[in-house]
């Protein structure tokens, strides 16, 4: 305990007449931020009179009771940092608790802080009241509730606000409504207790728009969003995301590439029958207010070829996201070409032909195709030639195309790939979208 002299003088008790309450930060999703926020909230509480925030800093270190208060920039949102006290001693009187004198000491390492609340020994019986006060402060000032978060090892990070709108999704209304129907309890709709926990598995080959659907949901739901990549799920296990989700509910958990995370994407399919249980979301625990959407790149797992997958694998709903059909391809290509800053308006004339020839292409592949056409167009202009949209289209998607837009080994290309937190953050940013995964967008 730092500042013993100062605490003794403030509480007017010897050290053996004091009681220390060590606030549990061990189970916090981010101990440092929680501790800093608690200290800041406690001093800002109108029911509290702050007597002193540590002693004046004495650079010689000789002055008795001299303490420093350390301030740092602490990340409190995506791209947002605030000055916060990360180390310091605050002496206060709590008017709401009858003027109870309390010393709050925040210290320790940045990644392993400790928060000590010190009271006189005769006030030891009031520690539960102090703990309840802190609980209330944290509840009202929680740094994570209602935010878009990513799990990164033992810590939480912030993701940028969702920017995918319903109109950005070129998908059947029925698909979006299916998701809204399941997650209505996270969209501000009144739902009975039995419908306040739902889980949906999105299955489809890469590029069909699963991640985009998740991004749309992440920006739509009212509550906390916790994005978990398969690498992190493998690292921390299922219990931690589930616990954080319960702590921050209402919460939507996005489990990306769940089959990869659980080691079920290889060989003979899943080892666990109930993937929701395996991912830590056992119904034995209280999961009210928690929605789960998981994705898999292996839709064949849902087709009942394996007995265990003939059911629902523990999910309430299974959504199979397939590549667009002919009219869908044409519709998407038209939107892409119309939005192109490079291609001329008459480029739309070649769309029906391309759309007819690209049976099975995903939205991501079509997006990639149009982008390649743009580059070819610019290249032709750069060489001083007059570009011809028909020739360019033939060169990028025909049998002799060097760009590789024919659908060949797509599923194998993605098998077992583990997205990282960085890739998720990248996907959620407007300007750094991963083309491969944003196929459903425009």
């Amino acid at each position: 305990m730092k500042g013993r002299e100062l605490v003794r003088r403030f509480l007017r008790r010897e050290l053996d007449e004091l009681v220390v309450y060590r606030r549990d930060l061990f189970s916090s999703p981010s101990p440092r931020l929680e501790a800093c926020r608690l200290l800041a909230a406690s001093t800002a509480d109108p029911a509290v009179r702050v007597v002193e925030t540590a002693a004046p800093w004495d650079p010689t270190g000789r002055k008795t009771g001299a303490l420093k208060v350390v301030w740092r920039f602490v990340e409190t949102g995506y791209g947002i940092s605030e000055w916060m006290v990360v180390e310091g001693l605050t002496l206060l009187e709590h008017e709401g608790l009858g003027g109870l004198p309390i010393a709050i000491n925040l210290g320790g390492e940045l990644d392993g802080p400790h928060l000590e609340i010190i009271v006189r020994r005769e006030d030891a019986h009031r520690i539960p009241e102090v703990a309840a006060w802190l609980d209330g402060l944290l509840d009202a000032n929680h740094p994570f509730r209602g935010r878009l978060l990513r799990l990164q090892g033992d810590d939480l990070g912030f993701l940028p606000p969702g920017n995918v709108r319903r109109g950005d999704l070129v998908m059947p209304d029925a698909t979006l409504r299916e998701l809204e129907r399941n997650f209505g309890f996270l969209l501000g709709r009144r739902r009975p207790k039995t419908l306040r926990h739902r889980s949906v598995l999105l299955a489809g080959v890469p590029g069909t728009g699963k991640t985009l659907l998740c991004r749309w949901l992440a920006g739509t739901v009212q509550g906390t969003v916790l994005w978990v990549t398969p690498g992190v799920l493998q690292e921390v296990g299922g219990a931690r995301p589930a616990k954080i989700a319960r702590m921050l509910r209402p919460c939507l958990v996005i489990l990306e590439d769940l089959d990869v995370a659980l080691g079920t994407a290889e060989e003979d399919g899943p080892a666990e029958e109930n993937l929701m249980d395996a991912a830590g979301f056992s119904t034995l625990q209280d999961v009210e207010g928690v929605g789960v959407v998981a994705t898999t790149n292996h839709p064949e797992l849902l087709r009942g070829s394996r007995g265990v997958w003939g059911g629902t694998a523990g999910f309430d709903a299974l959504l199979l996201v397939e590549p667009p059909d002919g009219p869908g391809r044409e519709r998407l290509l038209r939107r892409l070409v119309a939005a192109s800053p490079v291609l001329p308006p008459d480029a739309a004339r070649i769309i029906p032909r391309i759309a007819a020839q690209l049976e099975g292409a995903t939205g991501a592949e079509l997006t990639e195709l149009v982008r390649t056409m743009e580059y070819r167009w610019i290249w032709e202009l750069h060489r001083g030639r007059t570009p011809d949209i028909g020739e360019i289209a033939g060169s990028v998607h025909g049998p002799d195309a060097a760009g590789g837009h024919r659908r060949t080994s797509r599923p194998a290309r993605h098998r077992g790939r583990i997205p990282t937190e960085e890739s998720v953050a990248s996907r959620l940013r407007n300007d750094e979208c991963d083309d491969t995964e944003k196929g459903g967008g425009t």
Partner: protein
Amino acid sequence: MIHAGPVAVRRFLRRERDEWMVYRRTYDGAFRLVGHRTFGALLASPDVEVVRLANTESGSRFPEAVPMVWGDECVEFERTEPILTNATAMTRLRSLGGLPAVFTMVSDLLEVILEIIIPRDDGDRIDAVLSMLDDLEKSAHPFTGRHLRPNHWDPNPLPRPTSDRHAIFMPPSVFEAMEEAFLFLTDPDAVPGALHNRTVLLAGPPGAGKTLLCRWISGVVDATILWYGPGEIFEPGVPFLLELARSLAPVLMIFEDLDDDPESTDEDSSLHDLLKAIDRNRPLDGIGILATTNDPERFDRLLAGGTAPTRFDRIIRISVPDAGLRHDLIAHLLTTSEVLPAPKPGIVERIHGATEGFTGARIARIVRDIELRWLDALDHGEVPDLDTILHHLLHERPAVVRTSGFGSGEVE
């Protein structure tokens, strides 16, 4: 390492350090809370006069003076509360003629150490002190009667189950068989002590209601519940689980989806260890074991191959509900729905006719889907039509909703 301040203890016991007797008891990992609670019970006991309560340490102005420490401990499912974690109590034990004794509790994230210090010339009374401590530990045990999912490091309390027998639609014989098997946990006096252990295997397809039955019986018996999911017995290991169960008896151990244990594929598996333990079940007095499986034949194969030395005392097979139970289940789900209006005549029969061979879970899922679609229509300002919803769910059976990324949606 003894943490009690030597000066304070010397002064209180009026003995030098080499005239003390120290007994140390360690509570590690998941049992830390037991140590804290035992110390708390000691302070509250009418048999103990607390002369002075403090923590002790050398090196400060008062050589033994540092504050008592409280910390947060998980006491219920995801609920923590402040609890005394570090302290020294100078006491006189009233029940032992005022014997002076010092109790010290020191905690860290890994373990709690309780030390009992008495004058060496009272050493012959240590057994009486320990006996008192044992009684306090038992009376204040934080696990007794609780529902837990413990491993080495965390007791992992579970929410108390609320399954109501009237909401479980199974033949009465299933309930009877369960109650009969675990009668020694509900009414121990009715069963001779030699029969105070029983092993039951619930076998049936996924969704048949095995977990529901486990939840129900765990609310019926008067025992501590230790609940393990698939694969969860591997990490703590069977010896730890059984030792824990012995210390908490009477206990009902529930092993969910035992055959799903990924480590249970060879002879050295956790499953094999468990089956061996069941074979040597006699020392497991007061312990009931209830396991569930989707694949009872796997146990048969283990038995036939000689790798499992015994079988469960009883296997209760559960199948999909018959026509009568299915009808009752559907009627119950519809009439208790907080969303749907009271079912019109013929609705129950319509669902009944389309769900032959379905498990209870699958039928419940259909009713939940009906509720969702009903609410969805209301959310969109539409008038919900039960006929349309039923037609869609019962005849098109969208186990998987198929959608293309860009084309029109289609239901499989």
